[in-house]
């Protein structure tokens, strides 16, 4: 836990690129790793999409490469399908979006935005990456174990999860990931509290920093309960305790080693106590990213800075008291479900407030339609759809019908894909020039943008319809039920769109790697932005700022009539004489 080990850092290759303690290198390590995990999780779901659209048909090309147990004759088997589902969810949430939003963007951008030379604990920062990576690799390796990967969904409900093979590795790997996020969140909070440059008061911090601050608290306080819950599940699996197991369980005519007497609902409560705040971990940093990009590209101060920050803080607090809205159908008393219904309606208010502030920020602006701005603009309505479709799930009456249908899948993918992921793309285009001193190509960016947004809607919009037709989620073969046949064409639309989405990621991947080396060179502040990360070189040197920046004003001083430029950096001495 050494503080700020700087100096003498002209190190070997290993110390510079692999075991670096520099927040920027660590941020890029997180960036590349989590993007790869995202791609992997996406590949898994493409296999599932094939099976959903064309059940029982052999996979083209890939089918023959899969092991005969997983996919006999190239047809995805039911067990393997369940593994794909569980691992897709787990990988996307815990190895993809969160590390990208927090580990990559938070790590790289947040210290720069508050004018700090690094994180408060650089070595702890490095540790958190090096605990995350093995945790993630273990998760992937579990596919190769006898019995395969976990197959009880990312929610891992017992007793199924205690019985199914593969789950032990899932739990072990989760312990790694939880430890990593604990180290990270500690570091973020201390850094934001203690490492702000002189003059960077809390009220002058960019919205993105606030988003990371609230997120860090969620990670800090919500993950330990899942850790405890995972330990109990691990005990159930390894030592045959019965914390989650009912008595007299018989599987396939065989008695089981569990004496029983436990509560399988206990897991659900503990899991969702983490997993609802986790949902806000998935959306708060993206909201912060979108806020930054909107301010820069509308060339005016954000509408309602205080309201934005206050709403995010309120979301953070409330997110701890809504968890059981995922469990309305688990037989809970109506008093309890009414309580969670009310808290859920309450938490939707600040979320709408955030979105409203962002939309009102556009009013009267002369918007620059850059690639990052396009993604940020797409975020607003699409995330809005995700949020609004959540309300019927939070109301007990409608949830009775919609619970565990494809409607739910549609809802949360609008939130995390057309919401979070789109915002993370926006952030990538926005901060790429800071990371590499070069811009991503605009034309390829626009192709990527249009293809991606259209395809995403093609994937997830049909899911609402299929869901309202009454189709359950987690189905291996929808056509096995007669009432699902009517929705089958929608599955085909969804699957085709998923492959289109894959194709439209190719320009992005090419653009990304090509632009690192050949992209258009830009100066340190190509967007003419006010926040501190743009007031140092691109990429920033070790220690970030040549001298400690002094902050004189809030983060979004655009279009100040008293100033000849239309932007006034946070650390500029004072407004230059008016024109």
């Amino acid at each position, binding site marked *: 836990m050494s503080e700020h080990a700087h100096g003498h850092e002209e190190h070997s290759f290993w110390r510079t690129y692999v075991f670096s303690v520099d927040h920027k290198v660590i941020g890029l390590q997180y960036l590349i790793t989590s993007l790869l995990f995202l791609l992997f999780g996406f590949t898994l779901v493409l296999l599932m999409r094939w099976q959903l659209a064309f059940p029982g048909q052999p996979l083209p090309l890939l089918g023959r490469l899969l092991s005969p147990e997983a996919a006999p004759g190239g047809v995805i088997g039911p067990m393997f399908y369940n593994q794909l589902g569980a691992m897709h969810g787990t990988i996307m949430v815990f190895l993809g979006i969160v590390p990208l939003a927090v580990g990559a963007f938070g790590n790289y951008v947040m210290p720069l935005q508050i004018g700090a030379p690094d994180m408060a604990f650089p070595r702890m920062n490095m540790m958190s990456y090096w605990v995350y990576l093995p945790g993630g690799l273990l998760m992937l390796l579990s596919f190769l174990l006898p019995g395969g990967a976990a197959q009880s969904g990312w929610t891992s409900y017992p007793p199924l999860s205690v019985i199914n093979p593969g789950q032990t590795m899932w739990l072990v790997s989760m312990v790694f990931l939880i430890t990593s996020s604990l180290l990270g969140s500690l570091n973020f909070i201390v850094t934001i509290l203690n490492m702000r440059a002189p003059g960077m008061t809390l009220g002058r911090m960019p919205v993105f920093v606030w988003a990371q601050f609230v997120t860090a608290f969620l990670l800090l306080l919500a993950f330990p309960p899942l850790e405890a819950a995972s330990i109990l599940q691990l*005990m159930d699996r390894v030592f045959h*305790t019965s914390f989650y197991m009912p008595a007299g369980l018989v599987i396939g005519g065989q008695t089981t080693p569990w004496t029983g007497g436990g509560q399988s609902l206990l897991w659900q409560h503990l899991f969702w106590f983490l997993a609802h705040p986790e949902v806000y971990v998935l959306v708060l940093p993206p909201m912060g990213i979108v806020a930054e990009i909107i301010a820069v590209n509308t060339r005016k101060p954000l509408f309602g800075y205080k309201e934005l920050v206050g709403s995010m803080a309120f979301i953070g607090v409330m997110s701890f008291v809504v968890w059981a809205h995922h469990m309305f159908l688990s037989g809970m008393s109506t008093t309890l479900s009414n309580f969670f219904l009310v808290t859920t309606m309450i938490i939707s208010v600040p979320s709408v407030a955030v979105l409203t502030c962002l939309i009102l920020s556009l009013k009267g602006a002369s918007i620059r339609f850059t690639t990052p701005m396009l993604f940020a603009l797409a975020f607003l309505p699409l995330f809005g759809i995700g949020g609004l479709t959540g309300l019927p799930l939070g109301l007990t009456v409608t949830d009775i019908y919609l619970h565990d249908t494809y409607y739910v899948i549609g809802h949360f993918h609008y939130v995390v894909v057309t919401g979070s992921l789109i915002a993370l793309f926006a952030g990538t285009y926005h901060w790429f020039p800071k990371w590499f001193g070069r811009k991503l190509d605009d034309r390829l960016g626009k192709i990527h943008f249009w293809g991606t947004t259209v395809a995403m809607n093609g994937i997830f919009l049909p899911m609402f319809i299929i869901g309202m037709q009454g189709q359950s989620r987690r189905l291996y073969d929808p056509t096995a039920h007669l009432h699902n046949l009517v929705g089958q064409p929608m599955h085909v639309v969804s699957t085709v769109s998923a492959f289109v989405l894959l194709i439209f990621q190719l320009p992005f991947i090419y653009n990304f790697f090509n632009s690192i080396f050949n992209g258009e060179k830009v100066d340190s502040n190509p967007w003419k932005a006010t926040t501190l990360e743009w007031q140092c070189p691109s990429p920033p040197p070790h220690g970030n700022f040549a001298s400690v920046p002094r902050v004189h004003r809030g983060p979004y001083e655009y279009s100040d009539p008293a100033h000849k430029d239309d932007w006034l950096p946070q650390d500029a001495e004072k407004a230059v004489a008016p024109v």
Partner: protein
Amino acid sequence: MSAHAPAVQSPYENTGVPDGKLAIWLFLASEVMLFGTLFTSYIVLRTAAASWPRGWDVLNVPLATFNTFILIASSVTIVMAHAKAAARDKKGFMLNMGLTVLMAFVFLVVKYFEYSSKFAHGHYPSTSIFYGIYFTTTGLHGIHILGGIAWNLGLMWWANRDGWDDRLFIGRVEYAGLYWHFVDVVWIFLFPALYLL
């Protein structure tokens, strides 16, 4: 800032609270959530259980009482160790920290005998929910004790090398103490919950 600038502390540390201290309090907050969850699970499982043994019928209360006193005493010695470090009395620090570590070991040895006698009587974590909770919570607590031993030994080792005069030394002894008190408090809750109620 130049590559040779002193540690970042000076213009920063806006709150006036050292980084390490903030970090340890945040860490303890997360630990409260961890053990809080286990205690909640204990309550839920116990309320729903058809039967629950009375702790003193199946567990060894005298041994646990002894262990409770040992831990409380070690919390005193670690406070002394901090005071000695602040008073720049190295011998006194080493003595008190050494005692703390010693008592932590005693605690674990006693625990070892408790566990073995349970196993000898055929009581395993799988025997009942009660034993499951007993082994899981005390086991996790034991791991925390081990962590404390490692941390405290590390401080002694560091003091003997170049740590004693490091400007962060006293602070780190304090943080070790905070952690140790926490581990102590967890036991103060576990003891009645498992043995006496």
